[in-house]
């Protein structure tokens, strides 16, 4: 089974997200970068599927040259091939991103044969546009279900599970298909030292992305209204227990 997993490099913020002076980006001067969390799980899913069913896994990202780091991280936990669509901007809008990824997938498939499964994250942690995977799937005329927390391969069909308010929904999706994965589908492994060393030697293919700007364009980032709270100190250590229980009583939680 040949699996492609599409990821995004995003900042790893701590307690607060600062914006650059021009409002165009998150201030990353003091931040590390990571793979967007849902996609970290999509990478793990791709590796597991190839371990179970054979074939090959490929990771692809559209992003700055530094996104090489995220591609190599995926390689360090077992992804076989890596493709970078380098852009000069911080981000592309969702229509443009989708067009570029679709074109890249068509090129990869005409060179190496079709992907049985293309994985995305449910949404990116930073921009959260919730649509790139769906647009790519439609352009490729493949079925797509988002929010997936369970994948089982049954011949030419994938049994996919998704959580809802009421419980779990089951989909039987024929391959080739596209799925959007949610964190919790698995617990991503950590790279081994051997994996890390091997990932340094992986050949990252570069493909120039093509896509016209779409109808949604960012003007500026804004801070959300901060929840201001005057923290009431109930005390220090175990001696604070009676004050805590008083609070529980006051809130009607001590029935």
């Amino acid at each position, binding site marked *: 089974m040949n699996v492609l997993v599409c990821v995004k490099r995003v900042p790893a913020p701590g307690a607060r997200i600062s914006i650059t002076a021009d409002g165009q980006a998150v201030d990353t001067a003091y931040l590390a970068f990571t793979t967007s969390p849902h996609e970290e799980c999509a990478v793990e899913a791709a590796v597991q599927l190839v371990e179970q069913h054979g074939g090959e896994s490929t990771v692809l990202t559209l992003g700055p040259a530094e996104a090489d780091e995220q591609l190599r991280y995926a390689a360090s936990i077992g992804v076989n091939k890596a493709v970078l669509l380098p852009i000069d901007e911080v981000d592309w809008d969702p229509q443009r991103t989708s067009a570029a990824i679709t074109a890249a997938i068509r090129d990869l498939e005409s060179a190496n044969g079709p992907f049985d499964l293309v994985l995305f994250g449910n949404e990116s942690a930073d921009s959260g546009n*919730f649509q790139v995977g769906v647009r790519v799937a*439609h352009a490729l005329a493949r079925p797509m279900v988002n929010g997936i927390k369970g994948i089982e391969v049954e011949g030419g069909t994938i049994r996919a599970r998704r959580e809802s308010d009421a419980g779990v929904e089951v989909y039987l999706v024929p391959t080739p298909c596209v799925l959007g994965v949610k964190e919790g589908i698995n617990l991503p492994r950590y790279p081994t030292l051997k994996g890390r060393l091997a990932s340094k030697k992986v050949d990252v293919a570069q493909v120039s992305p093509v896509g016209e700007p779409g109808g949604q364009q960012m003007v500026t980032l804004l801070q959300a209204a901060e929840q201001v*709270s005057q923290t009431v100190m109930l005390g220090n250590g175990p001696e604070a227990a009676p004050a805590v229980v008083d609070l529980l009583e006051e809130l009607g939680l001590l029935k």
Partner: protein
Amino acid sequence: MSVLVVVEHDRGALSPATLEALAAARTVAGEGGVHALTLGAAADGMAGELAGHGASVVHQVHHDLLSDYGPEAWGEAVAQAVRTLAPEAVVACGTDRGTEVMAQAAARLDLPMVANCTEIGAGAEPWTIVRLRWGGSLLEQCTLQASTKLLTVAHHAFEAAEAPGAGTVSSLVVDLDPALGRTIVVDRVERAAGVTLATAPLVVGGGRGVGSAEAFAPLEELAGVLGGVVGCSRAVTNNGWRNHTDQVGQTGTRIAPDLYMACGISGAIQHWVGAMASKKILAINTDPEANMVTKADYAVIGDLHKVIPAITEEIRRRRGA
């Protein structure tokens, strides 16, 4: 201007978020009218409630492929409705289904789609919109240029309110390719009844400071005596101490209890986004400067391993008295 609202429902049960989408649509539509679109015969019964929240027309679509939820069949039906009715804007809920259906429709119509809007500046082209990023901890102002504006609205951004509309029922015909049946729900496993993380009135959350899977036992005990549930941060699930189903956060569960007791949790953005809808937050932490402590309503400075058993004991003492 006329605005079409995509009604979200599960086999006839109306999603409350739809009423917020109707409220958002009313702010944009003005005199032009809010139209509602219901997919599947199971949704026919909700026409009255939609009218009560401002729908001047309720367009009902009946089709075998719409008897249960399927993102592609729903998305194609919305796309065809947009072509037939030619509204200026289409609004859906910023839920899993709402965003998925709107993305499907946007792809089919080759139109942009703006997800999780909190402010919609309609009028001259292009529209100016404010939307959520980073799960709501950052906002983006963007412009939207499109022949039809496709939007999903963020939860809590627009307040549902009654506003009588004519609610004229109209039938809309769509032509769906049977192949779209490939992504319709084939089976469901209903969740066992009982309190869940999302609905619990009290959540006891543990973070990296708890230290191990076993060290969650006192948190379980405290949650148990109070009829609450245990939650955790992403650091905890990444360490394999608890299942992801217990994770509170941007990529976990959004909670809204009466009280959230956050124990040994620093309060990174990822976690805060999932906890911020709590009515009250009590932080228990050794670090008085921790983000969770400074943002909380109440705090106890101390080692959770000593504080939590003391709270449980105090509860038992008072109940015994």
